[in-house]
């Protein structure tokens, strides 16, 4: 497979493929950076554009847009605390704190390095290890999803800086919000109060924009309107990462990439889970002097490494088994079939020239992303020099426009604003908006997993879990994390 894939490396060197990559990367970065507009939407918009392209060029366009879309979401997260995608929400915490301390360009340097290298490593896993790794995704059933969700929820305690109690209350609030909507198991509308808009539940995007961006807009409207976010008068041109930037955070990067690569293989887990696991892992490993929650570069390195580390491996089950791991992969799968290609091992056997060209294209797109992204991000960073009196209202307006543009649904706008006000007061009184988000994202995974686990195990979940090795490994990880937390607390006492 190694030799075979190398043969097709030169296929990407064509003007068409280069332009497709450039278009995909640019569209992905811009749409990903706009809160409310998501990478799947960007990819879906490109499908009709790709009709006249050859299958490999069309798919290079899609995968480039996917990789760049995930990274684009981090711009707004770091610079404005307005995550463009759900996979970049954790980056908003440390990233924005760094921006506030006048270190926006430093944050962008690390984020670009972590994302680009994460994407490239993930791309090589996709290229060389797809068939064996695809089988790993089949080890995950309801029991494993339930436990993965629990593992993710264990991050709440870590990301609630200050009071763990308030963090847990925030997480519980998120879990409660996740129960709103039509129940998958009975078709009963739960807590919808006869509002049609609530039947599909509380959306992740309005929640992220509300809790982070809208609340941030409100906060910016306070205080002296003439000051700016970063406290800087001009931005540095030192935009390219150096060894001096990377070496101090090398282990954080490696842990982040590892989390991304592993979680990526699990269908439906994705960047939004990987980044929280990576982030909480970093916090647990905090050394004296580390300032998590106040702009710790190690935290940003880990979250940024993990969310792009996910991208390549999340395409593996889609290409090899026809099982897309997320909405973006599902749209790419749709594009694949429109161009007459069927996913599966037959694709590797019958059309190696297409599949390997696409995979090399994905890696090349990550390289191209490095150049386009850093330049775009520096342009974006100018916003941090604008006075709060302008930026605050702008963030509020863009939050409203972004949510409406993303869903064309006024319910979502009201919901976002309500959650924005909630997020604003939560921040003020030391509660954790990140905890609410984690509860909301992981609640449905845990609930569906648990209820299906009860059905298939005849209400004997523990006996069932003990018969499944992957479940046991995840369970041991959870127990290990809890034990580690107690040990750390005892030591600090």
């Amino acid at each position: 497979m190694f030799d075979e894939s190398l043969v097709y490396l030169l296929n990407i060197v064509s003007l068409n493929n280069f332009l497709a990559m450039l278009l995909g990367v640019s569209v992905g970065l811009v749409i990903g950076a706009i809160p409310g507009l998501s990478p799947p939407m960007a990819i879906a918009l490109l499908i009709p554009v790709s009709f006249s392209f050859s299958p490999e060029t069309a798919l290079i366009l899609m995968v480039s847009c996917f990789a760049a879309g995930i990274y684009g979401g981090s711009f707004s997260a770091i610079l404005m605390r307005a995550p463009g995608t759900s996979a970049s929400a954790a980056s908003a915490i440390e990233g924005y704190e760094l921006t506030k301390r006048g270190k926006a360009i430093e944050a962008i340097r690390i984020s670009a390095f972590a994302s680009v290298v994460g994407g490239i490593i993930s791309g090589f896993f996709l290229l060389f290890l797809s068939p064996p790794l695809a089988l790993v995704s089949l080890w995950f059933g309801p029991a494993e999803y339930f436990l993965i969700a629990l593992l993710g929820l264990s991050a709440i305690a870590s990301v609630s800086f200050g009071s763990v109690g308030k963090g847990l209350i925030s997480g519980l609030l998120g879990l409660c919000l996740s129960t709103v909507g039509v129940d998958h198991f009975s078709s009963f509308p739960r807590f919808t109060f006869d509002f049609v808009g609530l039947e599909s539940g509380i959306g992740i995007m309005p929640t992220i924009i509300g809790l982070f961006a809208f609340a941030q807009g409100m906060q910016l409207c306070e205080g002296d309107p003439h000051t700016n976010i970063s406290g800087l008068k001009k931005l540095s041109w030192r935009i390219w990462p150096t060894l001096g930037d990377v070496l101090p955070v090398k282990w954080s990067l490696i842990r982040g990439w590892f989390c991304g690569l592993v979680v990526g293989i699990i269908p439906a887990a994705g960047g939004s889970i990987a980044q929280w696991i990576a982030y909480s892992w970093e916090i647990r490993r905090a050394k004296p002097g580390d300032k998590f929650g106040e702009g710790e570069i190690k935290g940003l390195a880990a979250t940024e490494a993990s969310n792009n580390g996910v991208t390549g491996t999340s395409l593996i089950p889609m290409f090899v088994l026809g099982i897309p791991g997320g909405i973006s992969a599902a749209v790419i799968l749709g594009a694949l079939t429109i161009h007459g290609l069927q996913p599966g091992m037959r694709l590797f056997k019958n059309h190696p020239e297409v599949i390997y060209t696409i995979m090399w294209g994905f890696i090349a797109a990550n390289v191209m992303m490095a150049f386009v992204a850093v330049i775009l991000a520096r342009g974006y960073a100018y916003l941090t020099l604008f006075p709060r009196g302008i930026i605050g209202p702008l963030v509020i307006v863009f939050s409203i426009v972004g949510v409406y543009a993303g869903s064309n649904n006024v319910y979502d706008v009201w919901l976002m604003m309500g959650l924005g006000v909630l997020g604003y007061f939560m921040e003020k009184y030391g509660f954790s908006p990140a905890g609410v988000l984690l509860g909301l994202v992981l609640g449905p995974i845990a609930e569906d997993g648990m209820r299906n686990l009860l059905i298939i195990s005849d209400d004997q979940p523990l006996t069932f879990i003990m018969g499944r090795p992957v479940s046991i490994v995840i369970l041991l990880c959870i127990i290990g994390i809890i034990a580690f937390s107690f040990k750390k607390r005892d030591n600090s006492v």
Partner: protein
Amino acid sequence: MSIFKSKVLQVFLVGLVLPFAMLSSSVQAEKYPNGPVTMVVPWKPGGGTDRTARLFAPYLSKTLGVPVKVVNMGGGGGWVAWAKMAKWDAKKDDHMLGWVNFPHMLSYLNPKMKNKNNLDSFNFLTGHSLDPCIWGVREGDKRFQTLKEFIAYVKAHPNEIKVSVGGFGSDDHQAVAFAEKFIPGFKVKKIFGNNDAKKLQELYGKTADAIGGNISYFVPHMLEAKLRPIAVLGKQRASQLPTVPTFVEASGVQNFNFAARVLVAAPGLSAEKSKVLTAAIHKAMDTPEYGVRELKGHNTLWKVQGAELKTFLEGLAGTVAKVKFWDLPK
């Protein structure tokens, strides 16, 4: 006094211009559609209907002669958009088209949903595509490789076999509910809330023993010889799977389930305008290039309109109301 301030002259000029303005507006009114058409997808981007809409829009734009814009309006299991479509104004919203999915839209029959809309709330123009359900098992599963063997095994081992389906009330859940209601002794465990991808993940990973889904998504998996289709839940065999029997052929029980997409316009839209839209939709569906693209996606186009479509939808609603899946034990 300036000549242009003269009232007489003003009236004269208006009188001179007005007939031309009226003529041009009447010419515009005769041409329909005379501006961009918005096509509402009741789901977020990325699903099957979204894919079909985006694939179809450029071809429909050519036959209508105006741009066609795809707008996603997800939420409420489709009902955020459908509630709006039911209230579209025949005059103001005459450039709107919407996608309605069946049997999903029939969730209004579930009394728990407290939904006041019904089939009469919509102006159904034409069917677009129909994707029959299939039941599939793992290729090589020694216990069953045909529907007959599957039913016999389930009857001999009630409540042991696990079938992965979508949400409660989805077309594939209704198909299983229907079998449980009309095949004596047929009782399976249902794993709920899964999209097509997760169903396969559970089947291949041996969490589930069988899946219920729609043909279009699963054809590639049959070609890979991993998924064995045991029955098509259509009235006839599917053209893509000529050797796979229908449910009634293999079991003697009629179990007809599918996912269908129908296009709607504003309720009360004039017959002429509805006719223009329907004709353009059909012409676009007949475009050979479009047909080939849908064929590649294994999507079966379905041009049914008027009384035939109405009878079809009413029949379907009758079946759903009879099965009352919402009252069935899980």
